[in-house]
């Protein structure tokens, strides 16, 4: 796909999709002849689609869908995956200057400290890969042979909102499309009654940065992530107003379609046919979204697999189950945010109490999701990503309880399915886990690799704005991390 102005992208699609799905009401043939009477050439008789219609990939794809489990705040890799005896040994000692010279950190003026903090967790090696996982993630430890654990992820920004933007859009600047938007822009969606890019949230608050994290930036809002909410309507304005019954709603949609069709014939404006499609899809969503959210049909065994005790309660576990249901329905990109992983120490987010709580909430369901996708044959087609916007420092923070500062030089993420290698630890960090000593993986590399698996060339997936071809992986060089691929 060549760079196009976003409006062109839309208009072009609309043109090709003229008369799409107008098979109801005035039939498409009748419409075509009406248009012909007006002297407007009938549109190509090709099958008609909407702007999210599946598109051709740049090359054959290994994966079709993505589920991104985003631990918002920055999980501590040093208490979860990175076993560093040296850190424990030198607990309380200052980190050698050679590590930190010239580096900048968050909270430079207040609580940032330079003394090493050893982990209090117990680490063991697991699976055939021998990956180290701490006692906080027993369930994840059970799937290490399904995942590629990347210990050398590297990002560029160390404050939450900018770093989250970076992880999602490849840039710390506002206004760039998020990964989910890029992917739905590049591939469309295989679901015609739900949005192509869906966001689910758990935790006590929204992720820092808010809606820009799933925004479509310079791409049309067609590609923006749609938050599925657990309270009230799953999608804003999904339900029919209280005093309106189902028959009336269908009558409304039919009447609007009929009148819009008349206007389409009068004006010949293709946008009206897109509008007609949009109303049909909206109407279908009114049924399909509640159906999606209703997990009543799931077996007890499945609920147990995810560790769901009360299927009505908003939890990360329920969101994982929903993620599977979304992917089953052909939704292209699903992103789960779980908040409050910002363990600086202190009364609300510390390593002693809160990190274990966070882990308990996400460990079991994350692993279950991978297992469930696998047993249903969906894992081959689905990339599961686990991680946050950055990691945490080997140095501790002095607050009333322990914590760690934001760290961008090396942090851990894992990927499963979608052609990623199963059962390996990728990358090697130094004795403190401060930086990579081998195989660093920059966020842009990660993005390039994920797009690659989806059949998209990150250098060709571009959109024109301000005279430049914007892309997810930015202007500097990004490479596909071959070592991560099966």
């Amino acid at each position, binding site marked *: 796909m060549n760079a196009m*102005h*976003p*409006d062109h992208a839309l208009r*072009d699609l*609309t043109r090709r999709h003229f008369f799409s799905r107008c098979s109801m009401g005035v039939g498409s043939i009748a419409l075509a002849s009406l248009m012909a009477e007006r*002297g*407007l*050439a009938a549109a190509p008789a090709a099958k008609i689609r909407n*702007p999210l219609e599946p598109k051709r990939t740049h090359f054959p794809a290994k994966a079709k869908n993505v589920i991104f489990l985003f631990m918002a705040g920055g999980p501590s890799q040093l208490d979860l995956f990175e076993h560093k005896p040296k850190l424990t040994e030198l607990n309380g000692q200052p980190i050698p200057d050679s590590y930190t010279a010239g580096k*900048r950190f968050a909270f*430079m003026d*207040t609580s940032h400290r330079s003394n090493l903090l050893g982990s209090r967790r117990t680490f063991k090696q697991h699976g055939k890969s021998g990956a180290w996982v701490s006692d906080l993630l027993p369930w994840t430890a059970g799937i290490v042979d399904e995942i590629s654990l990347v210990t050398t992820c590297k990002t560029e920004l160390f*404050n939450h*909102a*900018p770093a989250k933007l970076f992880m999602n859009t490849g840039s710390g600047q*506002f*206004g760039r499309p998020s990964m989910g938007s890029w992917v739905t822009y590049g591939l469309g969606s295989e679901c015609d009654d739900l*949005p192509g890019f869906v966001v689910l949230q758990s935790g006590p*608050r*929204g992720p*820092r*940065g*808010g*809606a*820009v994290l799933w*925004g479509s930036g310079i791409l049309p809002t*067609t590609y923006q992530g749609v938050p599925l909410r657990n309270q*009230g309507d799953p*999608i*804003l*304005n*999904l339900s029919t*107003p209280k005093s*309106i019954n189902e028959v*009336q709603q269908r009558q*409304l*949609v039919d*009447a*609007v379609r009929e*009148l*819009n069709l008349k206007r389409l014939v*009068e*004006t*010949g*404006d293709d*946008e009206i046919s*897109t*509008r007609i499609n*949009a109303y049909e*899809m*909206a109407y279908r*969503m009114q049924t399909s979204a509640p159906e999606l959210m209703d997990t009543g049909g799931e077996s007890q065994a499945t609920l147990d697999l995810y560790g769901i005790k009360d299927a009505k309660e908003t939890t990360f576990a329920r969101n994982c189950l929903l993620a599977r249901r979304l992917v089953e329905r052909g939704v292209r990109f699903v992103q789960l945010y779980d908040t409050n992983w910002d363990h600086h120490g202190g*009364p609300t987010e510390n390593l002693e109490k809160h990190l274990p709580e966070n882990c308990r909430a996400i460990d079991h369901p994350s692993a279950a999701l991978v297992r469930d996708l696998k047993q249903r044959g969906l894992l081959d087609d689905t990339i599961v990503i686990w991680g946050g916007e950055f990691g945490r420092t080997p140095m501790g923070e*002095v*607050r009333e309880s322990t914590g760690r500062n934001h760290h961008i030089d090396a942090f851990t993420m894992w990927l499963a399915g979608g052609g990623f290698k199963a059962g390996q630890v990728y990358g090697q960090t130094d004795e403190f886990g401060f930086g990579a000593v081998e195989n660093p993986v920059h966020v842009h590399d990660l993005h390039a690799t994920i797009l690659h698996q989806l059949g998209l060339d990150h*250098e*060709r997936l571009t959109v024109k704005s*301000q*005279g*430049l071809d914007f892309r997810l992986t930015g202007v500097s060089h990004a490479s596909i991390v071959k070592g991560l691929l099966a």
Partner: protein
Amino acid sequence: MKRTSPLPLIVLLLAQLAARPAAQAAPSATVEFNRDVRPILSENCFACHGPDKAARKADLRLDTREGATATTDGVTAVVPGKPDASELIARILTTDADDVMPPKKSGKHLTAAQKETLRRWIEQGADYQRHWSFEPPKRVTPPPVSGATHPVVPRSGDTPVAEAKGKVSENKGDKSVAAPGVPRIFNPIDAFIVAKLQESKLKPSPPADLHTLIRRVSLDLIGLPPTPAEVDAFVQAAAKDADGAYRALVDRLLASPHYGERWGRWWLDQARYADSNGYSIDAPRQIWKFRDWVIGALNADMGFDQFTIEQLAGDLLPNATESQKIATGFHRNTQINQEGGIDKEQFRVDSVFDRVATTGTVWLGLTVGCAQCHDHKFDPIEQKEYYRLFAFLNNQDEPTLKVFDRRVDVSGLTAEFQDIEAKLKAYLKEHADELAKWEAGLTPEIKKSLSPAITKIVAVPKAKRTFAQNQTLFAAGVGGVGPFRELNDRYKELDTLLNNGVTTMVMKELPMPRKTTVFIKGDFTRPADEVTPGTPAVLHPLNAERGTRNTESPPTRLDLARWIVSPQNPLTARVIVNRVWQHYFGRGLVETENDFGLQGTPPSHPELLDWLAVEFQQPTATPHSPSPIPYSLKSLHRLIVTSHTYRQSSADRADLRAKDPGNYLLARQQRLRLDAEIVRDAALAASGLLSLKLGGPPVYPPIPDGVMGQGQVKRTWAVSKGEDKFRRGIYTFVYRATPPPSLNVFDAPDGFSSCTRRIRSNTPLQALTLMNDSGFFEFATALEKIIQQDGLETAFRRCTSRAPKADELAVLKKLDPLNAARALLNLDETFTRE
């Protein structure tokens, strides 16, 4: 670039036409550098062989003739007149994968036609031209138009300069798709447009129906649909004198205070205006005085030069007035990061980056922001020049200005304030142990890091602390998130509103300028050479604008502002007329409205663009100003909307579908979905609920539950009462991180960066909003009452400004009145300007 294709290829050709201005479709025999060659070189070669020294490969630059014709190691890229001796040609033609240019890995590819163009260009002497937009605009005499009876007067007048002779088919009622009419030339715009159409053997469309016309021009000039009574009056007047009635209508609309609201939003998009600080905390801010300033200045038709100067440097004007200081809020619309643990300087620098980029985009139509990290890859702007611009904007203090405003609803806000105070007191009481626990946990180490204010409070015995002290302490300790924060932020906001008057964010020059340096790769931790304020060498000189002022002292923001509106500036007038034009036709004459540089698309009608730019700079008499003023936006609007090009029908035509499906040549008008705010305004107007109150603090119309919980900090959204619930969309409070859904879903900009052109998406979520949103449902219930009282036909007219046809009425009659009202508010036509 594109040659005439045989018929079977027509589909392919159409697709290409859609992506490129049709103006480029037919090359003339002589290759013209700017039109034919530069776009090819810029797109495919300049990234490695262009202005950026650091990225330049093989020491070859193709953006200058010197560079292209220089011989290095016995090899010459371009030998004028001798394509076969030119390495450039050899390299683009070779089949050797290692040698071919552009290299495969660049993802770029030259078509056979492009290669041929380059070959012929070299054959014809390889002439270079300066990029068109860096040359001053020239006023060209509008071309003669065959079929028009009167010669075209090169100045716009208030009366039609020419009227086509012969039978003009008046478009009556239902026949939207009528036969193309005989050219009508109301003013030079039409002459330029028709001349180009005639080249393609196309004719403009007939005038739009009267009801379409009044609806179109009302929505375009004031952002509101006409009332049925206004439509009737116009139709009656037009029966006597169609043109006179239309001109009177245009004058009435331009004099309406709602003109400033409609076009104010156009400017606020570019000013990245919103009501919160952005980033993750996204606390509310007060800067609506700036919004009202914009509306007022546009209503008064302040010349665009003065409009510019006051916003960029109003504080530096001699004896600056309060209003001129408020205007400087333009560049305070940057985000402020209040996240913990940040380096403040980093985000201050980021906001200056934003100001430089925004100034470049908004006024120069140049992507100067690209030179933040390196020399510009395509345009002649060096990195050092970028930082010289940066230096102008690096010396500010960022204070707030107190302004007392009569329009604040003191009693309503006081009641809310008291209510919140009571809630806060109760909350503090209830959560006293949390605070105690937090205090007990304060180690000496932590105590040292506390602010002096907090330390002071901690020292006060618990029992003796005031409410305010407890509140501050709680906010500093455990109350950083959650319900306390929500209440407390609103409390502080109200406190400011009620007790300190209104404040607004402004610019103020520091007594001692900050030192400005180049930042290596745009990284503020890597300062390099120091620079002084200055403007890019490719444009007109700065000093000319400094007049009698002491040229020894460094130039200031005021000099920058004056430099921007200098008559010598080749860009600003073009950029602004283009951005106004785009509002009327859905696309600018330069399609890349924010990039007039080398990577931008060339204008579809270059002479028209220049003519308009020069016209814009001429003093014109306006009803608002005793003496003629230059840069009158109202005169520009009047000029455009009184052209036939603007007034013609938007209905598509069979011949245009084949020849110009993208409507680049403007043989018809363009149907455009209304902007987000106006979707709301039009529905409010149709349902009779609209409040026409002007200005004042932002309002909080109903939004769906749970929306405000999306950001890091939950915010209260105290739904406005009374008529404030039904104000125009421009007055809705906008949190950057949590924008109001019904505006966001219709592509309202997010205020994170300057928006010079809105996208118009068309999505199922828009359908859900219009069908089900409680706000729109409320409008529908009001429209239902109108149906019950005045009948379906009236309701239909309120939504579409036209009478329904029998078959349309029949569809609606099958519905109950409420559903009929909902259907009317959901019609594509209701929220489209035709």
